[in-house]
């Protein structure tokens, strides 16, 4: 089915099930421990062995020698595969560093061996017996030094109007440098796979992955085998945040181990490897200049940035939202992804925007202050309904101003103290801050198959549920479209035997995958209509109805199964407009006047993300994003050893993410909007919008509380303690 023009009024505008707060249908399985996550799929294949990885302990160079004889002779060990024994594996487009094979080390904790044994304990202790010699090469690890060297160079991604003239003429400007930290996805479930490649022919992979089709293809490229010899299942994913978009070492090592020992092999990455072996979000250094006239109209943006990447990667580009978020006649943005020898940087929740808005929305706060304007009013004044770089390109839907107004009202923004440092409760300084949020609303082609069996409908798509609620919103979509109830629908996800979907990433999953399921349901309706020889039947109350016909769906098939499949193809017309999601975040913090500890006290987000398919699961997505935003603001940061070239805080004790005690009252408002240009359901994503802008809102609240303007994340107390009020 093609989606070639904005959708008209349709059944979703009169929805029974879509848009209603249904608890997730897989919830019971999860809270009772019965949802089969990758590492626990003991039932799918017999005689599973356990693999354990060995990782390089240099950042750059070569492995010159490996002696695995002691490991091979250790108790319980069935196979050892070292990287020197096999040719370099193929490198899928999504992998910057090779996942295994050959002697070249491209980053710390690159995998160099896998040991397979009867038990985890045997495999782990045998791995420690492998002796490795390296030839170490110097590496480049210091982003700060790269920034010093490269600042002001680099091709602009956009250069519109006359930026220099605008700054020369502007009565009010901001020109500051902001720094965001490298971050780890730090998902609860580490990368894990069970792989059966015992015969070296047919490969079955039970894994934890966001993108079945991408990873299926990456496996074929990596092992140089035919795609149709590979089967992949990933029905449940214990968190991904972009860290599981790609094929990673868990599946590769398990496959190599399985081929070597002739048994299925399960392997989970040990927690320290999640930080240095897999991908992370690169830190950024950003210079932001904003120019405005005396009335507060922004006349120019100039945003330049660097991030790090392994050769071939794209780093963390934090400047793109600056091209579309606010009006201004002139703008210049540039980003340089610097080749460095740190572990592989790649996408993490709201790649680009999360880091870019962390800087831009502080700069906007600084600008509002210089102008003597309320930060909310300043943003309203600079709203745009068209692409600021191309006025012929409207936003399909944009209700940012309503987000700002409704959010401010609900939060009590007007009542706040406006003088930094002037509100105190005991030893705590209280502050309020806000920030805008923008994240693109991408859609990707998405397919599904539906099977009508009696009155039951089974949906099959390779879409994944990474904790987001895909199972539930897909069931809602199918039930709504077919005139069924939620309980009539069974959803099967995350399997390479199913039609290719959008997968989960870039907050495109919910909108795209439900559109694909809708397309498949319409195909099924057409089959039914043809079978019953009806023109335009209606599907309601579990029945198919047309003129003189009124049949229960359960009765039309005589026990056979009716199967339909289709893919929603999103047309080029979407390119003629800007499509995005918007939010306004409001935060109250308390900063200890003596110690500088910052504790968030309450948060509120007002979101414009098109039709909300399920307010419960959507709310959970935004809550999670806000929580991750608090982490980014206050504590999350991978610290590189600049001599040795690795992230030192590679466990969950030293890489701190927000805990329950850090997250107080969170309130979320969804605007009642619908975007007809996005999908037939008029839905857009929301999972990444929730993190966007949150760090800046926290930073702005810290400023309001203390009068200390911080421009480097995470905003730990050591960055401000010397600027806090005198004590004693």
């Amino acid at each position: 089915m093609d989606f070639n023009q904005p959708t008209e009024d349709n059944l979703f505008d009169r929805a029974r099930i879509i848009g209603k707060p249904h608890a997730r249908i897989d919830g019971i399985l999860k809270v009772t421990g019965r949802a089969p996550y990758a590492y626990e799929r003991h039932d799918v294949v017999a005689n599973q062995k356990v693999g354990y990885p060995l990782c390089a302990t240099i950042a750059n160079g070569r492995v010159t020698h490996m002696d695995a004889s002691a490991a091979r002779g250790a108790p319980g060990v069935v196979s050892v595969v070292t990287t020197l024994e096999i040719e370099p594996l193929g490198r899928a487009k999504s992998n910057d560093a090779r996942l295994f094979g050959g002697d070249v080390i491209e980053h710390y904790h690159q995998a160099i061996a896998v040991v397979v044994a009867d038990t985890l304990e045997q495999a782990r202790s045998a791995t420690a017996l492998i002796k490795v010699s390296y030839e170490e090469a110097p590496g480049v690890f210091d982003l700060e030094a790269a920034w010093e060297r490269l600042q002001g160079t680099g091709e602009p991604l956009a250069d519109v109007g006359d930026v220099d003239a605008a700054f020369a003429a502007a009565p009010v400007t901001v020109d500051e440098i902001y720094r965001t930290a490298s971050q780890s996805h730090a998902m609860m479930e580490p990368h894990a796979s069970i792989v059966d490649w015992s015969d070296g022919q047919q490969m079955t992979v039970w894994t934890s992955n966001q993108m079945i089709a991408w990873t299926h293809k990456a496996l074929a490229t990596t092992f140089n085998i035919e795609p149709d010899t590979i089967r992949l299942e990933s029905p449940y994913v214990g968190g991904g945040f972009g860290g599981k978009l790609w094929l990673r070492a868990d599946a590769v090592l398990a496959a190599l181990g399985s081929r070597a020992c002739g048994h299925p092999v399960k392997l989970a990455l040990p927690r320290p490897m999640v930080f240095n072996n897999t991908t992370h979000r690169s830190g950024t250094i950003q210079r932001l200049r904003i120019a405005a006239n005396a009335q507060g109209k922004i006349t120019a943006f100039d945003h330049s940035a660097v991030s790090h990447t392994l050769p071939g990667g794209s780093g963390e580009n934090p400047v793109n939202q600056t091209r579309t978020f606010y009006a201004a006649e002139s703008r210049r943005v540039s980003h340089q992804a610097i080749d460095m020898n740190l572990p592989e940087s790649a996408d993490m929740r709201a790649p680009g925007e999360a880091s870019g808005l962390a800087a831009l929305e502080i700069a906007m706060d600084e600008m509002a202050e210089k102008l003597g304007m309320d930060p909310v009013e300043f943003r309203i004044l600079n709203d745009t309904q068209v692409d600021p770089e191309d006025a012929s390109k409207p936003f399909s839907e944009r209700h940012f101003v309503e987000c700002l107004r409704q959010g401010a009202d609900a939060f009590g923004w007007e009542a706040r103290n406006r003088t930094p440092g002037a509100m105190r409760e005991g030893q705590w300084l209280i502050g309020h801050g806000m920030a805008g949020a923008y994240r693109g609303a991408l859609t990707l082609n998405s397919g599904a198959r539906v099977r009508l069996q009696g009155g039951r409908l089974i949906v099959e798509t390779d879409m994944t549920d990474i904790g987001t609620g895909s199972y539930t919103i897909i069931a809602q979509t199918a039930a709504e479209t077919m005139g069924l109830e939620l309980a009539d629908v069974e959803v099967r996800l995350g399997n390479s035997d199913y039609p290719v979907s959008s997968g989960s990433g870039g907050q495109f999953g919910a909108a795209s995958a439900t559109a694909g399921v809708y397309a498949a349901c319409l195909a099924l309706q057409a089959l039914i209509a043809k079978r019953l020889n009806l023109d335009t039947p209606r599907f309601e109350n579990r029945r198919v109805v047309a003129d003189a016909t009124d049949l229960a769906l359960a009765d039309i098939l005589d026990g056979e199964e009716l199967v339909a499949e289709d893919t929603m193809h999103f047309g080029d017309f979407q390119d003629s407009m800007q499509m995005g999601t918007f939010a306004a975040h409001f935060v109250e913090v308390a900063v200890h006047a003596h110690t500088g500890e910052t504790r968030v006290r309450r948060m509120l987000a007002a979101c414009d993300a098109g039709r909300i398919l399920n307010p419960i699961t959507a709310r959970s997505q935004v809550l999670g994003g806000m929580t991750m935003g608090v982490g980014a603001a206050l504590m999350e940061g991978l610290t590189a050893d600049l001599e040795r070239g690795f992230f030192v805080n590679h466990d969950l004790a030293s890489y701190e993410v927000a805990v329950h005690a850090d997250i107080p009252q969170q309130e979320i408002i969804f605007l009642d909007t619908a975007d007809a240009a996005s999908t037939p359901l008029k839905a857009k994503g929301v999972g990444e919008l929730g993190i966007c802008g949150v760090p800046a809102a926290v930073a702005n609240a810290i400023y309001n509380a203390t009068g200390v303007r911080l421009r480097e994340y995470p905003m730990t107390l050591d960055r401000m303690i010397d600027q806090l009020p005198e004590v004693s």
Partner: protein
Amino acid sequence: MRAFSYERVSDPAQAAARAAEVPGAKFIAGGTNLLDLMKHEIEIPQHLIDVTGTGLNDITPTSGGGLRVGAMVRNSGLAADPRIRRDYGVLSRALVSGASGQLRNKATTGGNLLQRTRCPYFYDTAMPCNKRAPGAGCAALGDGATSRQLGIIGTSDRCIATHPSDMAVALRVLDADIETVMPSGKTRRLTLDEFYRLPGDTPEVENALEPGEMITAVVLPAPVEGRHAYYKVRDRASYAFALVSVALIKTPDGSGRVALGGVAPKPWRREEADAALPKGATALMERLLNGARPTQENAFKLTLAERTLAALLAQE
């Protein structure tokens, strides 16, 4: 983790004797730190002696008006004991600020004292560490190293790790003693200050215990009247090690005692600094942190310690 043998013992003296007798033996109680260290092969015991059945589970009054806390008393139980909460508030508060509820349910009084540093370079066995492998060097003192969490005083050119315990900081300010039993069956008693060793040239030696010697109890002297406070400063609100922690007992006459956590290889207290408490936080810290050798990344701990104490003093 390497394979190891395991036994349970029921008597402390027997435990100590076995530990001296069996090569590569270590005691295990709650195991909340040791098992992690074994998985990383930072600790490689060949034999574990489970001492949880040694009967050291009680908190009993001493003839001196204090309390004897058995080495197997769990951190949760110790923190919740009504006598501890009433008379040794600083200890109860320090305990509940440490780790998580689950860990405190497992961790024991003796084990808490013996936990190892959380220096990230100590935990990465690919990194040189004088504490883990004497003579290997110290990655934390490297040119590009990160040292924000590490020590500022009492450290050496060989090691700048801190001791992570909150409980021990409170015990230090309470002038608690430690009772042990030797492999010979003889017992001895040490002050907490004597118990912990500074790294010097031998950072692998962290305490005064001799081979096989086992902690049997912590002895709290008679209660010190006054205000008991423990302020633990960290980046997140819970479940994190201290950047700086301050244990304070302030007596009604204005004198008192202060010990610090998160700054040194042992709970950090100087009795001569306590004398300056009536003059305020700045005067006290000048003496308590005199001779500090922070790194560029952790020099903030000097300011933070002073301001944290000032916060406590201002809370009266």
